[in-house]
């Protein structure tokens, strides 16, 4: 069984984002990380592979990005992925990223494809489902658990107000969220050493026309300062919520 994990290369969550000319993210000084949900997906993939009872042969990671995405891919290899693929294109919109990944993996016979439910940069939550549609295979969304029972795969997906256990035949895409793994795994020194020798294959771009164009960016308006209410006077807070904010 072969597992593929799709990784987004995103600015660290604590980055103060800036847009030089209002048209694109100013990348100066930005620390890049594996998208947090994708990192959980990779962690689960490693757990599945390491459990000797499971028939998992390999874990491959893939991203769409320029050479500047390679440190993030090396980090994934250090965490334990066997090999990495970088599609050498700037990620523009979810549609073009999904199309690029589909093109790169369609003949590679992956059984399970994992993708995080959202990326912390453009927050679209679309890539995983799009990839499944390009590959014409099933997708299961909001997956918070994935177990292998022999060749059977049992998934837990979140629904409004509950959970469902579902099965689906491979190949499929699982769009995963919190719960899929407890804590993201951190690379150990040995992993970092080994990662240098693991294959990071760069594949050329297939031309894909993005469907959406990010034309400009704005920072939110500064918020008016917080109105402080005395702890002994919560009655006035209730009045403010009723009469000023009108939320009660």
């Amino acid at each position, binding site marked *: 069984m072969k597992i593929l994990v799709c990784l987004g290369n995103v600015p660290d*969550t604590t980055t103060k984002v800036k847009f030089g000319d209002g048209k694109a993210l100013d990348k100066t000084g930005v620390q890049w990380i594996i998208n947090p949900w994708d990192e959980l997906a990779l962690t689960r993939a490693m757990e599945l592979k390491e459990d000797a009872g499971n028939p998992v042969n390999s874990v491959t990671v893939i991203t769409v990005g320029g050479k500047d995405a390679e440190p993030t891919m090396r980090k994934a290899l250090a965490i334990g992925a066997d090999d990495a693929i970088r599609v050498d294109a700037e990620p523009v919109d*979810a*549609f073009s990223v999904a199309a690029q990944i589909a093109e790169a993996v369609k003949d590679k016979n992956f059984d399970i494809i994992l993708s995080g439910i959202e990326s912390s940069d453009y*927050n679209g939550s679309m890539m995983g489902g*799009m990839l499944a*549609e390009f590959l014409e295979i099933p997708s299961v969304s909001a997956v918070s658990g994935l177990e292998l029972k022999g060749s059977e795969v049992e998934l837990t997906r979140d*629904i*409004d107000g509950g959970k469902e256990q579902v099965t689906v035949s491979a190949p499929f895409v699982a769009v995963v969220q919190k719960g899929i793994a407890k804590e993201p795994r951190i690379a150990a020194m040995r992993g970092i050493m080994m990662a240098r020798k693991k294959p990071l294959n760069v594949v050329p771009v297939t031309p894909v026309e993005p*469907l959406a164009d990010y034309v*400009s960016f704005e920072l939110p308006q500064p918020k008016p300062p917080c109105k402080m209410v005395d702890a002994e006077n919560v009655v006035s807070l209730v009045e403010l919520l009723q009469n000023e904010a009108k939320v009660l």
Partner: protein
Amino acid sequence: MSVLVYTENWDGKFKKATFELVSYAAKVAEMIGSTVSAVSIGKVDETELGKLGNYGADKILKVESENLKSLDNQVYTDILAQAAVAEGAQVIIISHNNTGKAVASRLSVRLKAAVGAGLIKLPVSTEPFTVCKKVFSGKAFANVVLKTDVKVLTLTQNSFELVETENKASVESFAAEVGEPKTVVKDVQKQTGKILLTDAEIVVSGGRGMKSSDNWGVIEELAGVLEAATACSRPVSDEGWRPHEEHTGQTGKIIAPNLYIAAGISGAIQHMAGISSSKCIVAINTDSDAPVFEYADYGIVGDALKVLPALTNAVKEAKNK
């Protein structure tokens, strides 16, 4: 030509969020000079379907089949794609909830339609078709031009007001080809009798400042009088004080209630990313320098364990007036 809206049901019933979505679709239809066709998948009775007309659906298409008892992303996408073609949809509107994200993504590829995902307001313009969306987990906004003839928009729950209109809707059966589902549901666990975090208009949330899971009674009491859902920060769910379903924040649930009360939550950027769309934020924290006060509209410096019971009493009194 039409605006197509997918109106999901839960055990045959719609929610307030469904009507928000239809109200939104009606406004978009007005902007492009078109009508609203709603698509309902699965068993919903005529009375319930008719309610969609109160919020601006002109035509209601129902698709019923034994194969539609639970969500299969491909089968649902097939149905919506067929309806979109039959209705000549220019814009397809879907909730940005779990089901919505699952089908909108596939539909985008199927119809080669650009997606505006997780919107919180109406499109900025229709020529070119431009939407404004939050990016970088709420740290910025982006204007995005959707370049295709057909567009898919997903709307964040609780971000659009209900607009009632005169009901002139017709209900029709839509004869879609319904495929065999590939996702097989083996078991379901549902919470009952609780207000869902994603549906709630008011949320009372506790952080590490609550000191122990034994102290959650004061959160639940305030939530009770406010008819609110309860939530928590990540350390609280990681410690196992509260279930993971209650974790709000970047990697947990992302919500947009009218009122979010953060008790004993310091306001880490990851937490605020999940709740920054709240219309009003109240922070209660012993540390007057806690970052949560930078995001809050109203703040109290004090011990949540003492402030919350006082607040519960004050709300009770205000409600009795």
